[in-house]
């Protein structure tokens, strides 16, 4: 290989490796660091002594989480933290949208349960039943349903599914 071609090849590969390191090693590491910090801050916010302090801290967390999500859109825990903070300041509509975005990248029963809780708050009971049923179909003990009528409907749906299953067995 000619010296010039060799130097060009080496320079190009070092540049590519540097770009790779920045985008795919350093950035995920920073995202994870920020995620851990914001999860800790969210827990501290929940434990704050006054509602005023909770709201102030949660708003700050929301701003930071939204900025962070632009750089780290594929970190599920960031959506979870954002939705929790949105709930803390009573922005349930936004929280339901955040859970929806989270469900586009990850499917877990606890996300459906959390979404169900938010939908109950918004009075969207039919959608809440669907979310709870999805969660409990997979993980029967996931979350607590505080709304009595919704809990009854979820139990009814799951009971019907179980009966259908037993009929199949017979």
């Amino acid at each position, binding site marked *: *290989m000619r010296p010039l*071609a*060799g*130097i060009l*090849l*080496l320079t*190009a*590969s*070092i540049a*590519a*490796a540097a770009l*790779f*390191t920045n985008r*795919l*090693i350093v950035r*995920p*590491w920073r995202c*994870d660091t920020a*995620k*851990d910090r914001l*999860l800790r801050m969210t827990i501290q916010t929940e434990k704050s002594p006054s509602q005023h302090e909770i709201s102030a801290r949660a708003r700050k967390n929301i701003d930071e989480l939204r900025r962070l999500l632009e750089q780290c*859109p*594929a970190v599920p*825990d960031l959506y979870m933290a954002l939705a929790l903070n949105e709930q803390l300041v009573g922005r349930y509509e936004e929280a339901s949208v955040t859970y929806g975005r989270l469900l*586009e*990248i*990850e*499917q*877990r*029963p606890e996300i459906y349960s959390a979404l169900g809780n938010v939908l109950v708050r918004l009075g969207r009971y039919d959608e809440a039943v669907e979310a709870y049923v*999805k969660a409990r*179909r*997979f*993980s*029967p003990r996931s979350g607590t349903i505080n709304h009595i009528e919704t809990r009854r409907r979820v139990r009814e749906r799951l009971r019907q*599914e179980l009966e*259908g*299953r037993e009929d*199949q*067995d017979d």
Partner: protein
Amino acid sequence: MTVTSRSIADTESGSPARWCWERVAFPLLTAAGLIVLAIIIAPGRTDTFRLIKDLALRADGALAFVLVSAAIAWAGSGRIREMLREDRAAAMTLLAVLLWSTITTLVSTNRPLSVPSLVDVFSAAAVFIMVWYGARWIPKWVLVTLIFTAALNATLVMLQSFRIWQPLDLEATATAPHHANTALIGNPNDVGSYLALVALILFAVASVERRLLMVLYGAGALIATAGVVISQTRTAVLALTAGLLLVTLRRSRRAALIAIVLLAVAGAVAFSMRVRVVTRIADSIEMAAAGRWNDATSNRFTPIVAALEMFRERPLLGFGPKTFRYHHMEYSAVVERDTSHGARRPGTNFLDVHNDHVQLLAETGLPGYAIFLSALFFLCRNPSASGSEDSRRRIAAALGLPFAVTLAVLCLAQFPLHLAITRHLIVTIAALIVGWRRL
């Protein structure tokens, strides 16, 4: 004659080693990769083990890429052409892996999940190419690093298991006391998978070495085996047993017979002493016979059947790399509703199938799985009878088949292809086998 071909000629002729930077750089990066991946952790974080090891593998891939580029810039592309000549099947398999991973990522049902997986595949491929490229300069002492990593991790998992010393604060993540037995690897299953592969490699090397080296590698293998038993990973025990029998069988039939008798005696003694991993295997057989598949497989049955359902739906292209975690709930619910599958108790929300054979089928379709099987097959191939007496060649010959079989068994109930620590070990050893068997 180029610098590279000169140094190759030196290696082959056994003449006094002429100094060239490749002789230092390739072994060092290979050894550093094996050590760093096995010990690097991020204490105090939510994810102490997996992310940091994933990123370490990517960093190793980036360094490997630069190193191979530097070697080509220094000495031309002669070595690359030589690699293609000496093992076209390995090169084609590697190309197929990269091509098919890219295609399945492009048509993935959830591309944001598949792209990071593609990055990991390319990183692992860079490590494979670097080790294969430099195999001639990589001495067998590189494998001594595995004795160190095995001893460190096996000792640590023993100390954790017997509640003697727990250096890591894992209270938040360990859902059961057993789950705190992590060593520097991850959960106990990850520890078992890693140590089973390391133990097999060290047993195979010990089987071709003499005197002091045999004792050294044998001791490392025994420590790693103890770590596998302590980790209570049933699949790792079975995979190691299968690999070990093949190692002894390669030596002689008599050695294999002795190994079978010794293993049977050890199994019986362990069962009578109620050694946990052995009783767990016996319990699993009992539960499977009673049709309690999820109990028998630690809740793996539902995700396995769910993944097979996914494969039935998209047999050619699969759902895309790493997308099982996204579709798992939907398909598991179907599996548990349909009682003909026999999943009478809900499974767990696994992010991976815990069976790499089925996960590859579900995520990359039949072609993806066929590429995996052909990679295992090419790993088993022995070189032609004629060749040098280089001890590295004998190691490669002794390691190929047992390593491929151990990996295939391990993939039945674990996911070594999806863990950075085991993936790195697999590509490094596979590249050494491919490179060394042609010496």
